[in-house]
């Protein structure tokens, strides 16, 4: 396929008249794992919400495989192939684990593959199989995260976006989650990862972008970042 899978050109977006993202550009190639790091409140979540259509743009364009998606509704963008696993999970609290996963495969294209995808998700995340009948609001933090990721996998799609998958979890659980992410990458998935923890992504991402005050101030491979301690110190507090 010629050209990047996701092309973001000079986008601006924000809340209440204030722009959080300022003329941001980004390209993601198919099969790559791209990580966005940076201090909190500087636009990482806003970027993902702008891509998935939850937040309208004030300028610029976003294209998936060459086709514009930035003026479409969120549900159309999902149908086009962008899957957003949001920060804080946003599970359906009064539905069971199974029902949450079933909702992941709501789109007709995904619904036809419901059975096989459920098997795949349960194979990747066996804890979910155990707790499939449990109501989502009664799950632990780690279990909720797994349901969120599993739900995103049920949708399929061409681009998987994960917003801070390690947030608020114990290291052991984070290991499990990242295990899944690594396996997904190995199977050829295109992944856009937003993370606060640099250490987790440094050796896994093909490319890392540093987002500060709504702009990318640095990008490169993980190994390059580790050899630039001054960047780590300035933006990420060491």
């Amino acid at each position, binding site marked *: 396929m010629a050209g990047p899978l996701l092309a973001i050109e000079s986008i601006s977006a924000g809340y209440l*008249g204030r*722009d959080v993202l300022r003329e941001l550009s980004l390209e993601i190639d198919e099969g790559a794992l791209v990580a966005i790091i940076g201090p909190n409140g500087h636009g990482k979540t806003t970027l993902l919400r702008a891509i998935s259509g939850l937040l309208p743009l*004030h*300028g610029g364009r976003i294209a998936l495989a060459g086709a514009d998606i930035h003026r479409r509704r969120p549900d159309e963008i999902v149908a086009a192939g962008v899957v957003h696993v949001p920060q804080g999970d946003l599970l359906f609290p009064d539905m069971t684990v199974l029902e949450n996963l079933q909702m992941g495969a709501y789109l007709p294209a995904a619904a036809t593959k419901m059975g096989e995808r459920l098997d795949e998700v349960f194979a990747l995340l066996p804890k979910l199989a155990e707790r499939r009948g449990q109501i989502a609001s009664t799950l632990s933090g780690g279990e909720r995260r797994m349901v969120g990721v599993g739900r995103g996998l049920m949708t399929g799609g061409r681009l998987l976006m994960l917003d801070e998958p390690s947030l608020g979890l114990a290291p052991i659980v984070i290991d499990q989650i990242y295990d899944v992410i690594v396996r997904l990458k190995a199977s050829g998935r295109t992944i856009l990862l937003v993370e606060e923890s640099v250490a987790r992504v440094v050796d896994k991402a093909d490319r890392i972008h540093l987002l500060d005050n709504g702009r990318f101030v640095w990008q490169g491979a993980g190994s390059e970042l580790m050899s630039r301690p001054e960047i780590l110190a300035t933006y990420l507090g060491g």
Partner: protein
Amino acid sequence: MSRSWRRDLAVGVVLLAIAVAVPLLFKTRYIVTQATLFFIWAIVVTQWNLVLGVGGIFSLAQMALFACGAYTAAMLGYYLAVPLWLGIPLGGGVTVLLSLLIGLACLRLRGPYVALLTLAIAQVIFIYIINDTDCFTNPPSGCMPLFGGVRGVTRFGELGFRELFGTRFYVANYYLTLLLLVLAVLFSIVIVRGPMGLAFQALRDNPGYAVSRGISRFKYQLWLFGLSAFFTGLAGAVYAANFRAIGPDVFSLTLLLFLLSMIVVGGLGTIWGPLLGAALLMLADEGMKELSDYRNIGLGAILAAFVILLPRGLVGALAGLRRGRLRRPGP
């Protein structure tokens, strides 16, 4: 800040001059008495506008408060022979007490719940009044329930204008009501442009920040609710004094709708909006007297259309246009 004050003052002076001149120019009684009624509704809607638009309290008890003022003055006059000059301010006072009771009950609730609760309270009072058939007293004119029942309360005294002014007594009513309206509008201006207005604006736009600065929504809302109830009760008492009667028909939902439409058409949260809305709707009502069948249909349609298409009302839309021209083109 002073620019808006000056503009408000200018508008107010012009309107006041026109209002003062009306009875001198128009000699027909009907026009003057209708204008007096307009003043009364204008007082009610400016106060209701403060509660709804500034305070963000979705109260539907406005007419219950109006009735409270009216019934208090009327019953004090009827049962205790209290002169109306005393009864009217007392009516205002009692209404404040009632509003504080209602406020304490309601103000912990959110939006639509407040609406339901205040509506329920108003309806309970209404149902009680019309269903109370026990005769509290038994004058020669017939059984008189405590609150007058369906027929209402009459013969509770007069303002004395007939003795003083003879056949043109209604002009005195006109000026008295106008005076009250001026006070009510001044109060409205002080609230909207003053610190309370700013506090409510902060609560609306940025509740977290406002609370962190010590602005207690509950306390401010209660104050506003109580203060605006005073004028509403006064308006009710003056209404009763004007017509020398008060009955449960003021609880009518159609009337509530009519008044709500005035606010919506004129502009919720603005100072002059309710007045404009009141004037327009009363004129429209006059003009549509022939088509009384379609009155309510028209009213409902106007209400829905304005809320959907012109939510800021006429005054709000005008203000928006003005601000739009001044604003620099943004990203």
